[in-house]
């Protein structure tokens, strides 16, 4: 079990900066994030996009902002549980929280800070009526282990890099048959991968269907085939697996069941200290809401700073604390 002072859910810019402000108060932090690397949306979706409203940075790339934050918090040695989603929460009798991830990693802390923007990034699911019936029964949104498809017939949907790359990989001696289905005629992936897929289709190594879309799934218990809508009408393709690869979108996910007051997909907080209705659980950054809320990184930094003061009082109710300036005292890490 991982124990810490503040368990931060979400390793985006606001979650990362919380480590710094907490560290100044000698509080240790551990972060959980569903993505495999820290940085949240900044690192995952737009690392090369400039941000212009971080004070004192006329322009900073989102990826650089994350790198700088990682450097800034390094002295405070935060722990990370990455690639796992915080799923369950329990309160212990001594006022601590136990948070368990979808992979079973257990964390314990007296304070939880939810800095998860809109929740965790989850695969986008195509609107096919009986999709849910076949999840993990032939429908997979993520390819975890390519050997799983050894000797199987696979249909891949999507036109981006992951769809292209997996099509190429599975068609080279893994799957017995690969069909790639894409809604348009052009692909938005890396030009080399696009060319490779087109060459493979030309050579008959894969079955490429463009201007086509999967609209239904056939099968009793497990996927046996998919229904594909093309310009010429509907067509059935027999397959063992259907892998729709349409990227990720944020979902509030299990946090929605944590008995927190939620309004319009955001967690209601008290602006005094960004506490939620559950004492000990705070929400900061884009995931919270209050009158006048602005979803800006810089506001999240402010919220994190005030939040750790309240967390300190919760953890050490009898200790007095006075604000110290880093210019005077420097940064004393762990």
């Amino acid at each position: 079990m991982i124990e810490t002072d503040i368990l931060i859910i979400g390793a985006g810019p606001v979650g990362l900066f919380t480590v710094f402000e907490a560290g100044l108060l000698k509080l240790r932090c551990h972060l959980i994030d569903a993505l495999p690397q820290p940085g949240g949306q900044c690192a995952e979706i737009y690392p090369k996009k400039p941000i212009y409203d971080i004070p004192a940075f006329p322009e900073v790339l989102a990826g650089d902002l994350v790198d700088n934050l990682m450097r800034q918090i390094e002295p405070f040695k935060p722990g990370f549980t990455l690639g796992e989603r915080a799923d369950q929460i329990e309160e212990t009798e001594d006022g601590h929280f136990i948070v368990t991830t979808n992979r079973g990693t257990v964390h314990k802390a007296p304070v939880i800070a939810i800095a998860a923007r809109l929740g965790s990034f989850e695969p986008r699911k195509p609107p096919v009526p009986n999709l849910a019936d076949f999840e993990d029964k032939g429908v997979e949104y993520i390819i975890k282990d390519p050997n799983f498809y050894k000797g199987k017939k696979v249909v891949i949907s999507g036109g981006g890099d992951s769809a292209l790359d997996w099509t190429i990989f599975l068609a080279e001696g893994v799957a017995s048959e690969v069909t790639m289905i894409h809604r348009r005629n052009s692909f938005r992936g890396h030009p080399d991968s696009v060319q490779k897929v087109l060459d493979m289709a030309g050579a008959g190594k894969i079955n490429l269907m463009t201007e086509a879309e999967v609209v239904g799934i056939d099968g009793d218990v497990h996927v046996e085939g998919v229904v594909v809508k093309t310009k010429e009408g509907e067509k059935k393709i027999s397959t063992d697996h259907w892998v729709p690869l349409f990227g990720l979108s944020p979902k509030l996910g299990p946090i929605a069941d944590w008995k927190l007051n939620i309004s319009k997909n955001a967690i209601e907080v008290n602006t005094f200290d960004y506490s939620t209705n559950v004492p000990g659980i705070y929400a900061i950054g884009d995931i919270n809401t209050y009158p006048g809320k602005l979803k800006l990184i810089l506001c999240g930094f402010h919220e994190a700073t005030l939040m750790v003061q309240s967390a300190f009082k919760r953890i050490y109710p009898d200790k007095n604390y006075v604000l110290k300036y880093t210019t005077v005292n420097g940064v004393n890490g762990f």
Partner: protein
Amino acid sequence: MSIIKVTIVDRDGTSHELEAPTDMGMNMMELCKSYELPVEGTCGGMAMCASCHMYIQSDHELPEMSEDEESMLDSAFFVEDNSRLGCQIHLADDMDGLTVKLAEVGD
């Protein structure tokens, strides 16, 4: 100050005729949000989430799609020939009378 009229048909089929300023640097996603219509604008307007996916129902000539918008619509659902991302449509005077319908949001 310049104001145009824009009609937004929401997902229930209700029409909202809105006054839209063209001198505020606003786009259709932001216009919907400013009137509290159910558009998330999750990515903030970077053509990266398709939560502002809408269908253009009037015959206005709109600026062409950027590559970013095309690739996002590529992985969106319920896409039709008249699909656009609201965040990529910047309000301009020649859009007076524009009518759009909000697309379904997928799961």
